[in-house]
């Protein structure tokens, strides 16, 4: 690992890079005198939160910055052989920079959905990239593409060559993207958040792939990311950016062992971890005082505390055999086409959510966890099964409620959304957004509504001045807090939090998580906390349920799931979480295996097959695991943590 190249050189050396944009008055400095380097065959991670200028740095190195940006500084690209060039001095869109871009520097982007043209086949686009830079015949290009597609992990490169991007999943598309980026044999790869849009297991595979390629092809990689877990797992050197400036840089071990700049220290303290460490209260960069929440409690938003005494407490919500299938859009002309077999998004799920608990729900995209969340707030109706809400003296069946019952239900059960941009009506002031639910339910007089809005704003750590402003003037974290306040306005007892922090930066995430925890404690709320991030769920949840292809495969108190998971799917999820600690890196060998293959290696008891009925079986201590009915629960060995 420590064999230095014979002639010491930097593959990429960025010196005092500045990028600024002219504004009405003055200018916006997106990147301010940033310096960094990438050694040949090594990975440098560029870390920062949104708005830190890290992506702009990557684009500017490639000469792809917006046309009206003003740039300064030097970007020296040196492939050895005495051929160092300053990329900044090359004419924009000239022949030289175009030969380097794509030919000697490859780039992969965050969004695998949009980085391929939907109209051409994968092979077509990759061989185009190749033939733009190298004089090869069509047949040769095809051959080299197929080799590369095989190299990035496609079992059948010939077939993938003639497939269209929409036929591939996000992870597969990202693999194809990597193949396209390295097909010309570049010496530098710039990867801008390459795994952010992917599930953890897929993320682990892609990280393993990048590591392999880097070692095999001697690639230098500039990895732009906000995820400290990814950094610790893959990088050799780390550069931390904040407000366009480099605040700390060093070898990965040094950075994580001895973080020095207050910003980096704050950032690391704000990341939730797995295991014991995940339980201590996070220290966000900006904490919201809980006094406002207590005022809210006094205004009648507090619910009766759950009885912590012995004996099973009554479930607030019970699901029994809930099934929901989304039919493909009806096509009146499709009489002759074969009817597609619909996969249920939620498949016979039975579950109790106890009063006052936070139930974590994890699973990868497409596992049906969001659909389950929507069923629980009656955004959609189940096809089959019952969802019973215990409403004090009476009960409400969510599946059947209508009229007055539905109105009651709306005020008892609320939801907080993932996307802080799309969840607030852009044409309404924050005050109107918060008072609208009261307006709809005709609660209180205008003065009382105003008072409650002020109290809600106080509780989320905002001044009353926020009420007259529009959502566009708030940052993502602030908007998410407004979304929380709106969900609280009707004094619901049960709130579904659907990926509420996945669109937020780490420092803001900790703040939101703490706010949710404080609210739950002070107002005795019950949460269903949906997330794909196991560390976040570990921090929030009392119990954790794991979903896989619409089915509940494991449910248990948090510590059992974290330390002694039984279902192989839960184990693979846990094993794929990158931890921000270079001493505990991911098991690369395990991550190399595609999920479809890994599934075949599961013990027989867990494999789903037609004719082999499976159900949740009780393992004791509230731990239930889905396995074949033909297997006895006691036959499954209880083992220690996967990691």
């Amino acid at each position, binding site marked *: 690992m420590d064999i230095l190249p014979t002639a010491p050189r930097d593959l990429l050396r960025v010196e005092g890079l500045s990028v600024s944009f002219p504004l009405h008055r003055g200018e916006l400095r997106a990147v301010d005198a940033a310096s960094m380097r990438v050694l040949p065959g090594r990975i440098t991670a560029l870390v920062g939160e949104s708005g830190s200028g890290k992506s702009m740095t990557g684009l500017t190195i490639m000469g792809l910055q917006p046309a009206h940006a003003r740039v300064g500084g030097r970007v020296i690209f040196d492939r050895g052989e005495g051929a160092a060039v300053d990329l900044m001095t090359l004419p924009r869109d000239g022949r030289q920079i175009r030969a380097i871009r794509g030919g000697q520097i490859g780039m992969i982007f965050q969004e695998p959905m949009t980085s391929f043209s939907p109209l051409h086949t994968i092979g077509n686009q990759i061989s185009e990239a190749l033939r733009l830079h190298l004089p090869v015949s069509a047949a040769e290009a095809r051959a080299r593409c197929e080799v590369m597609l095989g190299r990035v992990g496609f079992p059948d490169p010939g077939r993938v060559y003639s497939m269209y991007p929409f036929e591939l999943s996000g992870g597969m598309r990202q693999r194809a993207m990597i193949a396209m980026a390295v097909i010309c044999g570049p010496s530098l790869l710039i990867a801008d958040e390459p795994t952010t849009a992917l599930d953890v297991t897929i993320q682990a595979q892609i990280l393993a792939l990048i590591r392999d390629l880097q070692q095999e092809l001697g690639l230098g990689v500039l990895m732009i990311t906000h995820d400290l877990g990814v950094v610790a797992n893959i990088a050799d*050197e780390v550069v931390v950016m904040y407000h366009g400036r480099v605040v700390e840089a060093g070898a990965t071990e040094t950075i994580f062992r001895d973080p020095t700049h207050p910003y980096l220290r704050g950032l690391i303290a704000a990341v939730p971890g797995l295991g014991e460490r995940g339980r201590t209260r996070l220290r966000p*960069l900006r904490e919201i005082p809980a006094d406002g929440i207590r005022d809210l409690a006094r205004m009648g938003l507090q619910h009766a505390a759950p009885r912590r005494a012995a004996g099973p407490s009554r479930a607030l919500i019970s699901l029994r055999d809930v099934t929901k299938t989304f039919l493909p859009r009806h096509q009146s002309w499709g009489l002759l086409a074969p009817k597609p077999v619909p996969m249920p998004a939620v498949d016979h799920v039975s579950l109790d959510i106890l009063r006052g608990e936070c139930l974590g729900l994890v699973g990868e995209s497409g596992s049906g966890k969001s659909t389950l969340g929507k069923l629980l707030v009656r*955004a959609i109706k189940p096809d089959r099964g019952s969802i019973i809400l215990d409403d004090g003296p009476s009960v409400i069946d969510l599946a059947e409620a209508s009229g007055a019952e539905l109105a009651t239900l709306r005020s008892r059960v609320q939801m907080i959304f993932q996307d802080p941009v799309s969840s607030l009506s852009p044409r309404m002031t924050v005050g109107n957004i918060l008072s609208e639910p009261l307006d709809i339910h005709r609660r209180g007089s205008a003065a009382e509504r105003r008072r409650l809005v002020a109290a809600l704003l106080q509780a989320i750590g905002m001044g009353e001045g926020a009420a007259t402003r529009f959502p566009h003037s708030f940052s993502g974290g602030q908007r998410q807090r407004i979304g929380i306040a709106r969900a609280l306005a009707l004094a619901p007892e049960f709130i579904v939090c659907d990926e509420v922090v996945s669109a937020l930066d780490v420092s803001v995430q900790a703040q939101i998580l703490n706010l949710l925890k404080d609210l739950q404690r002070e107002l005795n709320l019950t949460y269903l906390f949906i997330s794909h991030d196991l560390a976040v769920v570990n921090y929030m949840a009392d119990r954790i349920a794991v979903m896989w292809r619409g089915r509940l495969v494991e449910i248990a108190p948090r510590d059992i799931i974290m330390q002694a998971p039984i279902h192989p799917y839960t184990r693979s999820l846990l094993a794929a979480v990158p931890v921000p600690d270079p001493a505990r890196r991911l098991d690369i060998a395990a991550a190399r295996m595609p999920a479809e293959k890994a599934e075949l290696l599961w013990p027989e008891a867990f494999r789903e097959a037609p004719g082999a009925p499976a159900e949740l079986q009780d393992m004791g201590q509230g731990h239930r695991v889905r396995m074949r009915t033909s297997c006895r629960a006691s036959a499954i060995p209880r083992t220690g943590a996967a990691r």
Partner: protein
Amino acid sequence: MNGPLPPPGRELGHYVSDIPFDPKAEPGGAYLGMGSASQFRLTWLKFRRHRLALISGVFLLVIYGSLLITEFLAPYRLDSRNLDFIYAPPQRVHLFHEGQWVGPFVYGQTMRLDLDQLRRVYSDDPQDIQKLRFFCRGEEYRFWKLLPADLHLFCPAEGGRLNLLGTDRLGRDVLSRILHGARISLTIGLLGTMVSFVLGIVIGGIAGYRGGWFDHAMQRMIEVIQSIPSIPLWMTLAAIIPMSWSPLLVYLGITVILGMLDWTGQARAVRSKLFALREEDYVLAAELMGAKTPRIIGRHLLPGVLSHLIASASLSVPAMILGETALTFLGLGLRPPVTSWGILLTEARGINIVALYPWLLWPMLPIILVILAFNFLGDGLRDAADPYH
């Protein structure tokens, strides 16, 4: 400043910058100044930068404002004729007479019948200086058909005459007729657009938010309406209007016809926008609060598309004006004595007019200008309509 960088290829030390870190500084401070700016204000700020659209907007405001005081602006009434001056060419305004300052005036004209070519020949009489008067008492009229008045912005000299754009075959002043015709032509565009706007929002709104059978039915209906060639359809509908109706009723009938045929595009625009918007989380949030359909459409969805609608409506006003002109030109729309630009152009058809009395084609100029202005304005509004992007 290469602070964090060691010499090329050497080991990287641990670099820590001395940049202070203020955890209280909320990100996104750049927006704060515009925090309480409503969407309308943001749109205006963006629109203001679109020069051509701004100028067009001001131009249209002035034109539409002038409709309120047409009688005052026009030197003659709509129906006043001067039988001595038939097909008189435009008079030129002079300032100097034989090198001497006189102020704005026109020469009186004498008419001679050219019996060889069978046409009237007008020539300036250099002795007859007719000074223009401003804010003067001229022809009497009834302001808005109610108040008797005789004040004009400018009028001919006592006993003289003033036809800056010439006269037509009945000796009527073309300029005055253009100004009066603007009232009908420009308002027909607005009224028709309003009819189509309301129809488009209601039908497109319900179809877009609800979908289902209503959407299907409306889509098919729109396709049928759009597939019928427009001129025969206009002709059919115009034929429905009874001949016995008063010209004013005919005018209203024509606006309604134009509006009823134009809503289809508007409805489709609303529908496709709502299809996109109804997937936004804030719509689901409103549903989860228990909001009913009219509230969701009215308070959450329409405000999001209104700016686009206004922009597209401003682009459809010219089509209305042209539609009226075309209908009338075909003899199916308005009929004299109501005067619109279409009527004026009807009177100007025929090759001999183009050859002999080209000034009768002047009504084309305001039509072109107004339509261009609406197009520029609509363009600017459309660009400014979404200030968040």
